[in-house]
């Protein structure tokens, strides 16, 4: 075991995958000479050479579309979109091509490829370096969308994503990159795509989250235990598509109360789907209202520190809503 932060865990897992299998190539803006703007591919160019570490032109549609072609012809591309905010020019490739290739060819063609994209706020990223894009893509059948939030999950799920016969959108929360550290095994291991994970066990209510908000939930849960003796179970969704309904529902049935916390704009966000699932499947197990905490329905967070804070749900807000729900 080694203590690592999220970005180092991703770097190391990707490095190991490249070292183990020469079908794995990385492509994207600044992944070569610069080693990635977040340093995820630091040292790769020197070690693996420019045929496998491809600095691309500034063209996200081509980054994804060329990865499609590579995946069709025996490679295992890991494409990087520098910031999730810049994935929109590739939306057609992601939705019309990546997600539909297997279905439209009746299973004849598959796309073993990964698209990595750093997402989320809390880094002074303002409107175009802070976005949450998961809901756009989790809505699309044929695309796996994962949102690991710890070093252990990030490294393990990246291995699973590279080994997956289908395309995976691998979303890495930027704020967690260097904020969150944890123990990571030195031997290769995989964390399967699909299953959610109970990150903290509890009995009074269930908080369901992912990304930076997961860590806020864990902190709020610890505070409630300490200050009020309230036991909060925290479920890390980890994979948004396919969604692990069973783990979520089992937790909600146990505690009888549920809240979903996400930083994307609240309306039509992933939390809406999770809350709807609970309402459909576990309504009569509930002892309190379903609570949904999301970012406000404004285009994005501002650059000014106080505007950014005003956008993002924080530990105080989450703890207050937890307390309210627990006492309902």
């Amino acid at each position: 075991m080694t203590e690592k932060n999220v970005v180092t865990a991703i770097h190391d897992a990707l490095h190991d995958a490249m070292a183990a299998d020469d079908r794995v190539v990385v492509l994207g803006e600044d992944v070569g000479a610069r080693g990635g703007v977040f340093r995820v591919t630091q040292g790769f160019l020197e070690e693996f050479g420019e045929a496998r570490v491809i600095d691309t032109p500034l063209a996200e549609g081509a980054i994804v579309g060329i990865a499609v072609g590579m995946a069709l012809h025996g490679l295992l591309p890991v494409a990087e979109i520098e910031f999730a905010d810049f994935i929109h020019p590739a939306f057609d490739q992601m939705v019309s091509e990546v997600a539909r290739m297997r279905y439209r060819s009746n299973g004849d063609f598959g796309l073993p490829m990964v698209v990595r994209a750093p997402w989320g706020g809390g880094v002074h990223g303002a409107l175009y370096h802070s976005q949450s894009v998961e809901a756009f893509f989790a809505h699309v059948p044929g695309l796996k969308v994962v949102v690991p939030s710890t070093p252990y999950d990030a490294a393990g799920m990246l291995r699973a994503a590279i080994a997956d016969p289908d395309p995976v959108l691998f979303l890495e929360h930027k704020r967690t990159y260097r904020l969150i550290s944890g123990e990571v095994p030195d031997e290769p291991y995989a964390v399967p795509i699909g299953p959610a994970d109970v990150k903290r066990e509890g009995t009074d209510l269930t908080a369901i989250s992912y990304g930076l908000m997961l860590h806020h939930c864990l902190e709020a849960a610890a505070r409630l235990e300490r200050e009020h003796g309230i036991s909060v179970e925290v479920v890390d969704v980890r994979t948004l598509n396919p969604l692990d309904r069973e783990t979520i529902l089992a937790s909600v049935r146990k505690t009888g109360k549920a809240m979903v916390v996400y930083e994307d704009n609240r309306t039509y966000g992933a939390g809406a789907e999770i809350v709807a699932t609970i309402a459909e499947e576990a309504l009569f197990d509930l002892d309190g209202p379903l609570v949904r905490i999301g970012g406000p329905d404004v285009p994005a967070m501002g650059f000014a520190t106080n505007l950014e804070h005003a956008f993002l749900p924080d530990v105080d807000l989450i703890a207050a809503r937890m307390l309210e729900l627990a006492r309902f």
Partner: protein
Amino acid sequence: MATRLTRRTSPEALGLSADDLRSMYRTMVTARLVDEAAFRLNRQGKAPFVVPVSGHEGCQVGTAWALERGRDVWVPYYRDVGVVLVAGMTPYDIFLGLFAKADDPSSGGRQMPNHWGSRRLGIISHSSPIASQLPHAVGIAYAIRYRGEDAVVGSWFGEGATSEGIWHEALNFAGIHRLPVVFVCENNRYAISVAQNKQMAIEDVADRAAAYGFPGVVVDGNDVLACYAAMKEAVARARAGEGPTLIEAKTYRYFPHTSDDDDRTYRSREEVEEARRRDPIRRFERVLLDLGVLTASDPEQIAAEIKEDVERRIDEAWAAPDPDPATLYRHVFAEPVDP
């Protein structure tokens, strides 16, 4: 500026035997007759949607002929009946797609007709958004070179596709890495109804190749041998590691964009009639008659034979099973392999 390929090359100099020439001719006639039958089936209410090829047979068969089955990769677009026939699809396959049958090799009846694909034949599945297949062709070409193979990718599209940003992105990347891919623009002067002068300020799409650092060639798309000559040279360059070529074949489509289009709203009958006088099939026929590869009675007899076969394949395809609605949920993701 793009090169204009105007020199006459004899079939012999191109390495084409009399059998090759007859096969090329038969493939062109097959494409035309498949098209005519499909429109008839549309009017009969048996084929909900038809994408015609007529007029494009010369540039499609001519360019596709320079690739090799089992070795090279085909990335066509929806009008490429001629290309996929050369790649190994049969009229039966095409009619299975037209009727959306379970055995449609492209999609099992999921996609609209003419959205080709077959792993076995090396034809890459494509969608409807225009030019979306271009980066796939380039990515495949990258993988070919990465794996040390000597295959070449052929990529076909209309001039309308060249307005899309992704078209530029794909050609730019191919140029940077000098990849083994040939881009073939079938310029029929209309993006559905939008005439070329409303699509671009230039006369020749092939001029754009200069911006990507590889050659652009303009060729008469109604001259199948000229198209073959241009493609053969481009494929040889690509195989030799000398990078991509953009070939622009000037052609025309005789029918509306699709069976749902009415081209009388945007082009005159006189213009269509004028274009039909340059029919690539009639033109090739004259060449083959002059060469003695065909005799005077051959064209009629060949057409009759193909027509009979086409009619038989239509009946067989019509009788083939429809997709099972229970398969709706299959192939969203890979299915577990039986142990």
